[in-house]
């Protein structure tokens, strides 16, 4: 399994924790354990998203940093050139990893 797919799976897993805890907290806003779990998952997700953007493409528009994104030059149409990295990477609906 490539680093890209492994890192994406980690983001999917911790991202899902955030999604599910969001709905739970919408109806249980005072649950301390859930609040702690939410904060931990949210922070972990943010860290992984930043790691992914540095190594590969940014997964949301706010992580676009033309100077630091996509160190591996993966799925990149303009290798070595400063460019808008939002268009780097495979499309989400392509088979995982764009294969």
């Amino acid at each position, binding site marked *: 399994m490539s680093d890209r797919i492994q890192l*994406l*799976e980690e*983001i*999917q897993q911790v*991202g*899902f924790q955030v*999604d*599910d805890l*969001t*709905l*739970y907290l*919408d*109806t*249980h*806003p005072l649950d301390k354990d859930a609040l702690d779990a939410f904060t931990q998952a949210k922070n972990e997700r943010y860290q992984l998203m930043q790691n992914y953007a540095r190594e590969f*493409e*940014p*997964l*949301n*528009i*706010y992580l676009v940093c033309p100077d630091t994104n996509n160190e591996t030059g993966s799925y990149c149409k303009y290798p070595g050139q400063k460019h808008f990295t939002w268009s780097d*990477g495979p499309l*989400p*609906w392509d*088979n*995982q990893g764009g294969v």
Partner: protein
Amino acid sequence: MWTYEKRLQYPVNIKKTCPKTASLIISQFGGPDGEMAASMRYLSQRYTMPCKEVAGLLTDIGTEELGHLEIICAIIFQLTKNMKPEDAKTAGFDAYYIDHTTALWPTAAAGVPFNACEFQSKGDAVTDLFEDLAAEQKARTAYENLIRIIDEPDVLEPLKFLREREIVHFQRFGEALEKTKLKLEEKNFYYFNPEFDKQFSKV
């Protein structure tokens, strides 16, 4: 407003072309209990919800449903992207192919195009939350009908994930209904409509 995240909520990686399966799963895109109807239902109902937390829940579930719509579309896309002309003749997919080739277009499995009448936005909190509870159960049944007749593990895994989400959403809507009742007249939940008869509301 919304911000796009360039990934699927759950991975889809289907290697085997199967237009027949695509023609059935498409119901969860544009069918009566599909993800498009789900998302539009919750995102339409939220504006007049008297209870702020419930409006927030409708926003969050409506947003997740957009992610589910994307998963369903990814499944259909991957099942059909390598189709050959002889595959296009597959019974059940052939008529769709004539009008849409392999593009995504919201329709029910039986060929009825997506229609806003698939969902309700009635303007009464009790009525709308019961609609939402029923909608999640109908979507669960539709996923179970698909899971029962599909054998391919690559297709089944994301469908099983989506089925589980229907159950979680049902649970959350049940809690939202209980929260809403606390703001209604306790001796008669139907004494007033909290989305219209605002002078009676305890909010």
